[in-house]
């Protein structure tokens, strides 16, 4: 009964979405304006349908209804309720159902928020979003039906993916990433709509910037949480492997970030709008490419895949989206190119332009490295892989250049800078950077990447701090406020600029943490018998005993556990285990991570000898890793800070032309 309701909901969603497309297009062509309202309600209806579908699936999972193939393959009677519920996104069909819920949710949110406004633009926005949603409903109707039944009904299912069961973090990063991915369809829809209606104006930029920033926040947090998951769960001691799945999330992030920067120039100085619309379109297409890569089984990855019939569908979707939007762009290019006030070589515009070139350079490099194995396999039939060293060699210099620009860009004035300004703003920060690098060298730091990153981070931070102090001082003098209050008012009244600075601070923290942790991590593999000790860095690890027993809450899972004590900067006891799940041939590692602000002690069990009770352990000391997660959080908070008041302001039903372009010298970085 429940699965039937779920399946019916998917079909209803498909119908409503198809209707919404037709009605939106008719409304856009100037037919009955009431059609737009009816289409909007159809989109809201499709969201409700997807919600019913998801609820039906979660009920089936919680009730262990093995008549549903998806449940039989991803659930067992012993699965705890929490794991059952999050199994909604544990495998292909369920994740597409969840995906559709979020995609229809974004569409409904956009249409409701902009109800009655932008009468020319919105029908095309709605039609584009409905086309995207139609694709997902169609996938669920034909190749990837989440409610496909199986007979005869089994008494026991396969159980969820072993990695999913092994750590609650699985609840965290997929929803964040999916929210980011699906939300990036919104700026794409605005891009398409603006190209069709020739309305790439300032209002358009403002709306699209906001609708890009919100999914961008989710994508940023999702990528960070995914890295955290990889670190805490997979047991290889690292957090980023340039795995295709990681790259798939990074690619749209790069182009979306490039867009967020180019939008500022476009807003401020005119011009660049066709470029900005190309970026939002590219971002959306990259989300499709990423989904295709991760869900079709074409590339080998940490996230292993089923070979599925969904691949060709996604390929077709990518081709349609790419061909359609390229045609549209080329069609409109002659009418839309141009504008923009002239600017000099030394100007903020140049910095932003270079920023976009670098972000696109990164995008192409990552895309190239990710797709090369596919291309080689397709042309010569040989199987190759592109390793992390290549990605690091190509991307690290670009990241360093971006870091440099991060400090230079905001400190350069719009239009044309003079050498005097440069000296005034860069002299002290540059000296500070040199001092820090010298101090690092004196302390014995010999890693080039770490030194360069540290120096640049100090320089960028000093430039930003100087900016804030300068602004606060001017405000304190001008209005007679005390300096602290002045600084607070300055930042809260220019949330966009200073929120952006906070984001940059978060990125700086992450950059330093990544450079130091990847450059200065140490690891060693040891085999020790009970009572023996091993050393890594300042730590001493002692093997107390080896235990093999079934897990207390699921007796089907056999745990081989090393119980250890460690002594050093931190001390205590820890347990690291290998778990054998009935549905996984490989044992699942359960690394033990002891985190401190300075460094992590990371221990993972590789093997054990039942005869001698000896264990083979992989020990790591990873410096500063926790700051990567903290930096990600700062980025999230900073961008939320930047967007907050605007979101509140626009909640007030307002007239379209309420906003005069702001020209005060400190606003709108």
């Amino acid at each position, binding site marked *: 009964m429940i699965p039937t309701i779920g399946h019916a909901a998917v079909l209803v969603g498909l119908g409503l979405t198809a209707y919404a497309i037709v009605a939106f297009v008719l409304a856009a062509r100037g037919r009955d304006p009431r059609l737009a309202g009816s289409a909007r309600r159809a989109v809201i209806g499709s969201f409700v349908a997807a919600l019913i579908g998801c609820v039906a699936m979660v009920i089936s999972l919680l009730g262990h209804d093995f008549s549903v193939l998806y449940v039989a393959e991803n659930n067992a009677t012993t699965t705890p309720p929490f794991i059952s519920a999050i199994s909604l996104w544990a495998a292909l069909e369920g994740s597409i159902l969840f995906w559709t819920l979020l995609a229809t949710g974004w569409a409904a949110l956009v249409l409701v928020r902009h109800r009655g406004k932008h009468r020319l633009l919105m029908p095309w926005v709605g039609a584009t979003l409905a086309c995207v949603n139609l694709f997902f409903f169609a996938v669920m109707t034909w190749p990837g039906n989440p409610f496909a039944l199986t007979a005869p009904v089994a008494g026991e299912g396969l159980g969820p993916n072993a990695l999913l069961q092994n750590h609650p973090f699985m609840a965290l990063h997929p929803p964040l990433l999916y929210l980011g991915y699906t939300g990036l369809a919104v700026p794409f829809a605005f891009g398409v709509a603006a190209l069709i209606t020739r309305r790439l104006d300032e209002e358009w930029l403002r709306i699209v910037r906001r609708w890009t920033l919100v999914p961008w926040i989710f994508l940023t947090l999702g990528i960070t949480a995914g890295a955290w998951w990889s670190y805490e769960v*997979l047991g290889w001691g690292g957090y980023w492997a340039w795995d295709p799945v990681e790259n798939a999330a990074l690619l749209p992030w790069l182009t979306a970030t490039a867009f967020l920067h180019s939008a500022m120039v476009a807003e401020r100085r005119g011009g660049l709008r066709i470029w900005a619309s190309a970026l939002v379109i590219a971002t959306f297409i990259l989300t499709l490419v990423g989904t295709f890569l991760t869900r079709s089984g074409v590339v080998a990855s*940490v996230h292993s895949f089923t070979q599925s019939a969904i691949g060709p569908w996604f390929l077709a979707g990518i081709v349609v989206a790419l061909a359609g939007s390229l045609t549209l762009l080329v069609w409109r290019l002659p009418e839309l190119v141009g504008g923009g006030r002239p600017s000099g070589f030394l100007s903020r515009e140049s910095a932003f332009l270079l920023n976009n070139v670098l972000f696109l350079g990164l995008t192409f490099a990552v895309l190239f490295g990710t797709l090369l194995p596919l291309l080689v396999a397709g042309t010569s039939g040989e199987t190759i*892989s592109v390793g992390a060293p290549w990605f690091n060699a190509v991307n690290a210099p670009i990241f360093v250049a971006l870091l440099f620009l991060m400090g230079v860009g905001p400190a350069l004035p719009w239009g044309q800078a003079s050498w005097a300004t440069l000296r005034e703003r860069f002299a002290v920060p540059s000296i500070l950077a040199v001092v820090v690098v010298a101090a690092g060298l004196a302390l014995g730091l010999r890693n080039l990447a770490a030194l360069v990153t540290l120096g640049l981070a100090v320089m960028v931070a000093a430039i930003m701090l100087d900016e804030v102090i300068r602004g606060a001082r001017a405000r304190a003098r001008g209005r007679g406020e005390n300096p602290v209050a002045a600084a607070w008012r300055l930042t809260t009244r220019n949330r966009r600029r200073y929120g952006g600075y906070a984001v940059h601070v978060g990125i700086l923290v992450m950059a330093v943490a990544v450079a130091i942790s990847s450059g200065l991590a140490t690891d060693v593999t040891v085999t020790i018998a009970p009572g023996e000790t091993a050393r890594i860095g300042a730590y001493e690890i002692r093997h107390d005993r080896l235990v093999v027993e079934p897990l207390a809450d699921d007796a089907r899972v056999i745990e081989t556990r090393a119980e250890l004590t460690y002594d050093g900067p931190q001390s205590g006891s820890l347990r690291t285990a290998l778990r054998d799940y009935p549905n996984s*041939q490989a044992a699942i590692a359960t690394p033990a991570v002891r985190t401190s602000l300075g460094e992590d002690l990371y221990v993972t069990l590789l093997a054990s000898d039942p005869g001698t009770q000896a264990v083979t352990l992989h020990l790591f000391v990873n410096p500063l890793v926790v700051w990567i997660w903290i930096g990600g959080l700062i980025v999230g908070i900073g961008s939320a800070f930047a967007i907050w008041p605007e979101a509140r302001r626009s909640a007030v039903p307002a007239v379209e032309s309420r906003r005069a372009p702001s020209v005060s010298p400190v606003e709108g970085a």
Partner: protein
Amino acid sequence: MTVAAPTEPMLPPRRRPWGIVILVVVVLAVIAYLAFSSIGTALVYYLTPSELAARGDAAVGNTVRLGGQVATGSVSGPATDLRFVLTDGETDIPVHSTVAPTRSFREGSGAVVEGALGPDGVFEATQVIVKHDENYEAPAPGTLPSDRAFEPGEEP
């Protein structure tokens, strides 16, 4: 993927900022150089024992991934000084590894080793990956193991 040239919309109608154009071209050239100069060494070919043997002496010293079955009765030594033979049924390649494999490593299981063939004909592995499905890593969310231990409906 994107059509508009990055420099195009920035150009003011009258004065072309050649400095910026040159800078952009230089940056793109550097990125292209970085990408292509190191691609040769970054590509790791995935070979079977027969394919590796067919390369003869040319294979010595080049980093590759070698995939095959761990020959029964060939494993000896402790986890951090391991010797075994990888086979595809036709060709046997002796492997030496100082890095411990995960515990799923056992005789008869599939394994992928990364490393290079030494002049003595022994493959020196820098990484041992147990191959438990089509890919060579732990299966993760959003996925199903492709060769499963049992099918739905069976009692495990």
